[in-house]
């Protein structure tokens, strides 16, 4: 069969969690129906209404790492490395012998380095910011797990982080498969990780969601037990796996995402979010419901989940398909749940064994006719296994794993579609909409203003790029407004601006064909800080229920879907400064795979005291001045900014059918990473320049065809140096370069979208914005064609947008003027 290149197989698995520190131990316990739920000893459970969690049994980092490594890696990084190492070992894949740019990593996580973050926060709150250890800060970001994995395994391929709560693990596996099918990687580490930590424990506690004893999914349903750990699958393109003689453990047949928009109201049962993702994944794999031999359910053990999930399963599959909850054994591992369940699915197939739902309370059995594989697992041939993850915030993900069959009919991949930008919305420094953003570019006017909202005496920054007052009531459903924090309001408001700009009305006919992607660098930091501060100072008993739903990274995406009643695929990307560009890439994949006709891509990043305080502890990161001297002489740090940008991204077919106005076309992406380690970048900029090359290659362009480069430079010496070197290597003096962060500050993920917005500005106006306030470039940038002293009037057909994340992630995008 000639479809081997279109198929993605699993050749390695790795896991560490409550039921085992490696695959062998893990499967032994699972197939013996063992519970890994135990009384917690690794973190304080004071004020929590339970003693139990799916805690790893006696985790000793020194058993896996050198003392130096233990210092270097946050626990989430450690667990991810352990699982990734095992996966690549099982796969017997020689990383050193392979082109490192062709192997990447995508992990799902809700917390990332939050254990380090909590420690930092506690020190700050109890002893003062000056006494808070900055090394903890470097290790706290949500993308610490992927940065740790790429550092340890020395890979340089596409890197991303998915944070749509409990669906993240399943989603990551699917996204990694997409990455391979897109041609951007030959192999991917895919999975998820989350540690036990007081933040999530207190949050679920305050919602009354924790079970006081070991959980009983699908029966007593007295609540969930949180779990910890990491699960990783090593995925490869099938033809390459066969070529190297790999042992294939299974195939990733398909996956699908959907949004709940919270209400189960629709008369058509297919309207329920979970059923949508289940149906869609079957459709993509070209399989009927009857093909599924076993479903690994979401089965958290809460009443809300356990009373609705079985109804969805029963409606779609009837009573005959066994569905079990392995969370009964290892707890709910949040971002790692779907990943561990993916590992379980592969093991189940290879061992012809269905794991049980243990701790089953027969008297509380509400769905007696369903086969929950009560208490004891059993032997059964499994050809196709479905794994479901239905997340907090209304994100659903379903994935299908197939027993390895060399020849298998799979639906053909669709012909390549062109993807266009047809609507824009923005909130940024001194700008309440896109017109005002463009006006700044036109006038060469930066937007930094003195910080007035809090006392800056102890911090480095004196200025920031701040969003002006916005009449949210006019842009957002007033009934939902009070439940949103600032980030949620901004995200919903800009999504509305983009939808209105694109003249796209969401109704019941198209709501399932529209997707929502949210990307952020640091997420809802203000809400997280406030929630955590209460827990630190007053104990978990005082944790505020109203705040917790907004502490998750995917809250904003959930608010957008709910506000507009959008039910298509949704997820949240949190890979730091590259998240914005990465979400544009993911949007093209959703459209390419036929999962959506249009996707709203929204990025949002905050500016507040917490951001300034934390970054003040990083030497050289922030400038005390009033300008961000991007690439400029005397550059001494950056100015932070808050911003929120939304694009409506659409297939060409859909745009033409609607007669939509087109701003530009997404023509090529270059996704690379380096292994410099947590919080670092390779100062030589090699991998960064490779991202430029790959983007141009995909767009089919030579360097001479680039009319404008929107750099990621921000005035930070380390990062600007790396980028300048990267630009020299590929662009040299051949294309005019500007730096949008000199206008709107360092807004992390959103800066990538602002860069893209500057490209749309340049294309639309044939005008390249200058770097405001720059007189002389700094030494590394000499020789580059920087636009200074005035805007450059020039025809702009193609623009290159650069983005990076510290920790080593580079994602470049080519946007072109759209020609039919």
């Amino acid at each position, binding site marked *: 069969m000639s479809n081997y290149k279109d198929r993605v197989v699993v050749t390695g698995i790795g896991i560490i969690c409550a039921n085992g520190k490696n695959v062998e131990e893990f499967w032994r316990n699972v197939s013996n129906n063992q519970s890994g739920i135990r009384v917690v000893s690794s973190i304080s459970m004071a004020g929590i209404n339970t003693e139990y969690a799916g805690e790893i049994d006696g985790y000793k980092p020194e058993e896996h790492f050198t003392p130096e490594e233990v210092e270097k890696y946050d626990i989430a990084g450690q667990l991810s490395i352990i699982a990734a190492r095992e996966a690549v070992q099982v796969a017997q894949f020689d990383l050193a012998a392979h082109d490192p740019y062709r192997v990447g990593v995508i992990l799902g996580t809700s917390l990332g380095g939050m254990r380090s973050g909590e420690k930092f926060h506690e020190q700050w709150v109890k002893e003062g910011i000056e006494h808070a250890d900055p090394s903890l800060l470097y290790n706290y970001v949500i993308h610490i797990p992927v940065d740790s994995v790429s550092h340890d395994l020395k890979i340089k391929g596409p890197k991303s982080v998915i944070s749509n709560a409990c669906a993240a693990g399943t989603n990551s596996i699917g996204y990694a498969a997409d990455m391979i099918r897109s041609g951007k990687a030959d192999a991917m580490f895919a999975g998820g990780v989350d540690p036990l930590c007081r933040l999530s424990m207190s949050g679920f506690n305050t919602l009354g969601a924790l079970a006081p004893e070991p959980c009983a999914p699908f029966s007593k349903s007295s609540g969930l037990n949180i779990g910890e750990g990491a699960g990783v699958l090593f995925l490869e393109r099938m033809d390459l796996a066969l070529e190297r003689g790999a042992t294939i453990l299974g195939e990733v047949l398909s996956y699908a995402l959907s949004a709940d928009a919270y209400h189960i109201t629709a008369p058509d049962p297919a309207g329920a979010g979970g059923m949508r993702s289940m149906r869609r994944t079957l459709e993509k794999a070209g399989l009927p419901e009857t093909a599924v031999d076993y479903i690994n359910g979401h089965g958290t053990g809460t009443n809300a989940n356990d009373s609705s999930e079985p109804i969805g399963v029963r409606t779609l599959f009837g009573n005959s398909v066994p569905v079990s909850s392995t969370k009964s054994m290892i707890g709910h591992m949040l971002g790692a749940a779907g990943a561990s369940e993916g590992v379980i699915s592969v093991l189940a197939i290879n061992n012809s064994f269905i794991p049980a739902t243990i701790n089953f309370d027969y008297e509380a059995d509400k769905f007696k006719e369903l086969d929950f594989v009560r208490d004891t697992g059993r032997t059964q041939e499994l050809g196709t296994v479905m794994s479901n993850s239905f997340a907090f915030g209304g994100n659903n993900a379903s994935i299908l794993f197939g027993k390895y069959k060399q020849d298998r009919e799979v639906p053909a991949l669709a012909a390549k579609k062109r993807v266009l930008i047809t609507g824009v919305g923005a909130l940024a420094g001194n700008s309440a909409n896109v017109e005002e953003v463009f006006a700044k570019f036109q006038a060469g006017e930066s937007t930094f203003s003195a910080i007035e909202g809090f006392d800056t005496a102890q911090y480095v920054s004196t200025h920031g790029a701040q969003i002006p007052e916005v009449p949210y009531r006019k842009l957002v459903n007033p009934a939902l407004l009070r439940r949103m924090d600032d980030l949620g309001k901004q995200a919903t408001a800009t999504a509305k601006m983009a939808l209105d700009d694109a003249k796209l009305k969401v109704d019941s006919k198209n709501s399932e064909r529209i997707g929502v992607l949210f990307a952020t660098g640091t997420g809802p930091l203000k809400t997280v800080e406030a929630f955590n501060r209460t827990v630190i100072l007053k104990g978990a008993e005082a944790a505020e*229920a109203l705040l917790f739903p907004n502490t998750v990274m995917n809250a904003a995406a959930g608010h957008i879907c709910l506000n507009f009643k959008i039910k298509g695929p949704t997820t949240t990307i949190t890979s730091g400064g590259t998240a914005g560009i990465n979400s544009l890439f993911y949007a093209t994949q959703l459209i390419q795979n036929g999962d959506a006709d249009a996707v709203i891509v929204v990025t949002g990043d905050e500016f507040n005291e917490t951001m300034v305080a934390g970054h003040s502890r990083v030497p050289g990161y922030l400038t005390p001045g009033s300008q961000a001297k991007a690439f400029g002489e005397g550059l001494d740090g950056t100015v932070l900014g808050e911003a929120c940008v939304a694009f409506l991204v659409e297939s060409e077919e859909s745009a033409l059918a609607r007669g939509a106005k087109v701003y530009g076309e997404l023509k090529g992406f270059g996704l690379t990473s380096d292994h410099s380690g947590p919080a670092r970048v390779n100062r030589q900029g090699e991998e960064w320049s490779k991202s430029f090359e790959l983007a141009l290659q995909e767009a089919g362009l030579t360097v001479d065809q680039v009319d404008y480069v929107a750099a990621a430079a921000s005035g930070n010496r380390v990062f600007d140096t790396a980028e300048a070197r990267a630009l020299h290597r590929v662009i040299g003096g051949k294309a005019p370069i500007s730096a949008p962060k000199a206008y709107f500050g360092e807004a992390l993920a959103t800066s990538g979208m602002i860069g893209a917005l500057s490209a749309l500005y340049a294309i639309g106006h044939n005008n390249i914005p200058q770097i405001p306030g720059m007189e002389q470039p700094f030494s590394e940038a000499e020789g580059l064609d920087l636009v200074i002293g005035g805007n450059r009037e020039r025809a702009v057909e193609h623009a290159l947008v650069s983005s990076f994340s510290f920790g080593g992630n580079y994602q470049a995008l080519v946007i072109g003027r759209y020609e039919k």
Partner: protein
Amino acid sequence: MLLTYASVKEQAEKRRELTTRIKAIIVDRLSLDIEPELITDDQPLFGRGLGLDSIDALELTVCIEDEFGVTLYDDNMEVLGSINKLADYITENME
């Protein structure tokens, strides 16, 4: 028992103070976008009326405890039926 205008007036004023205070606390703690005096004493609070939901109920329990030292229990749905019912419960249990 003879009800005097003065004594009933005093009682009424005390009661009004209590319901006014409860409304102000709810609006503040639940971030409601409404002036407290536009909440009526008898209107439904959950579902429709004020449109509160289960997360608000959790927060209300905490703030009633904080402000009045009175504990609300999960199974006591009647108490959350209106501002008046809340005020009745607080009055009964504050002694």
